[in-house]
């Protein structure tokens, strides 16, 4: 089974590729560049083409698939009616698939399911990364606010932190928000 992965995000393509490979599907071509895309797909001759649903070039690629003489009529999102749930899951995950003429639905289904899992995994990874970045940024802001309080009020670190926490609780806000407000005010006041 030959699988082409078309994804403008090389990171996500790698995550999908790795998932497929660990299931023993090793005949894979990853395409992240737009240049000569269809010619490269034609040369590779895949049975299945996986593509990010949000890829803004899908219409362009479908047109090229339609006029390609080398590719045997890839059809978007195989289905028979029994596969509606699988297709819904694919759309939900942001996966689209093109299946080359003649490939049985039973053979594509496991690949699609794998791709869906990997798309979800990638989305989760990115979310975790975003959260980690936010957490780091917040910790930095709180540290700087603490140091400012320690200096201005001549108190120690636990006292500075307690002050921040109490102010946050009293105002129903996050500690990081209070710290950020304090630093902004300090900047506005020019360190007075």
């Amino acid at each position, binding site marked *: 089974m030959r699988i082409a992965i078309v994804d403008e995000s090389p990171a996500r393509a790698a995550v999908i590729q790795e998932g497929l490979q660990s299931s023993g599907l090793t005949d894979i071509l990853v395409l992240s560049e737009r240049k000569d895309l269809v010619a490269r797909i034609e040369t590779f001759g895949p049975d299945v083409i996986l593509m990010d649903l949000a890829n803004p070039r899908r219409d362009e690629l479908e047109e090229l698939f*339609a006029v390609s003489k080398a590719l045997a009529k890839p059809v978007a999102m195989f*289905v028979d009616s029994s596969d509606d749930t699988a297709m819904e899951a694919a*759309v939900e995950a942001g996966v*689209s698939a093109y299946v080359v003429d003649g490939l049985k639905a039973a053979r594509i289904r496991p690949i699609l399911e794998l791709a869906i899992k990997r798309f979800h995994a990638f989305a989760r990874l990115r979310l975790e990364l975003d959260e980690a970045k936010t957490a780091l940024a917040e910790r930095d802001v709180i540290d700087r606010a603490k140091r400012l309080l320690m200096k201005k009020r001549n108190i120690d670190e636990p006292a500075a932190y307690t002050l921040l926490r109490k102010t946050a609780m009293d105002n129903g806000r996050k500690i990081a928000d209070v710290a950020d407000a304090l630093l902004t005010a300090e900047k506005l006041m020019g360190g007075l």
Partner: protein
Amino acid sequence: MTETMRIGFLPLVDAGLPILAREMGFAEDEGLTFDLVRDMSWATVCDRLLYGHSDAAHLVAPLAIATTLGLGRPAVPLSVPFVLGLNGNAITVRPDLAEQLTTTGTPGDIREIGRRLATVVRKAGRKLRFGVVHRYSSHNYMLRYWLRASGIDPNQDVEIVTVAPPFATDALSSGEVDGICVGEPWNSVAVDRGVGVIIVVTSQIWRRGVEKVLAIKSETMTQRPEATARLLRALWRAGQAFADPARLDEVAAILAQPEYLDGSQELIRGAVADQILFARDHERIHVPDFMFQHREAANFPWQSQAAWLYAQMCAAGHVTSDATDYETAQRVFRPDIYRAALAPLGVPLPGASAKLEGGLELPTGVGTTQGRLVLGPDRFFDGRPFDPERLDQYLAELAQI
């Protein structure tokens, strides 16, 4: 208790009706909550519709027919109970090419521009390349129609490729294409950047050319008849607002918002008002009926419009003429659903479901089941009418041009 309708759209001015229905409260008045889903390709708008991710979609009309016939996708019956607008597209070319075809900055004689283009095409050392927004789009078929009737074989003499609207301007400026046929605001964006000049607007090709439609899965429409009717009424009222000069600024401001078109309010305003800037550093020119979203029952899905599109699909070689498919294509358009939904509003409802397309030279009264209706001139630029009863004869004529 309101009912939610998820509607897919692409960021284009003619996605205006569902957007305005939501923002101006027409959806709410009908007890509906619109959840609008923006995408970047028609393929994705279509897939969301097919797999239940959206309930309805703003769609290029021929794609609704192609999907029903199973072209490039497994066949899923779609229905078009409402046309979201007529025309609103243009052909924009490289400024140096425009110089050879027309008086830059002004609307010219479309026949003369076609003749000159034919000369350029013959003399060019390579095939000129045009970008259209989708294989199954009215843009593609209108461009082909104009080229063919101008003596240029769209299948042989030029190359026609697909370029998504947001990339059309870049494709033009990089020289990837020599011209684009695209919807607004993308022609205006190319003009604004100075990389393109509008040479023809599609209303010059066909004065009343069918453009975007509201597509729903036939299955969904059967299951949710009442919600469909309410949706149509909300869209009809939005059309009224779209065409109301007093609401122009409000309309442009809403469409320009980041969650919708995320574009220049000024450029969008120009398109809605039919005030077209053909070339940078020129005056805006009023082009009557450039976009046509409301008057003359513009939203009525004439089955003859679907028939015309099918004929163009045959001419382009996208389908082989087939009596059963022809019937299926026409039935995608559902005037019966339109009439039933809009009857309570007391608006004019055409009595016929099909007409001779391009047959009116003067405003003409037509039979209605309700109200008075006068249709304006709807001619094709070459004066060739389309009779849906005579597909074979029409195709034979086209083949002889």
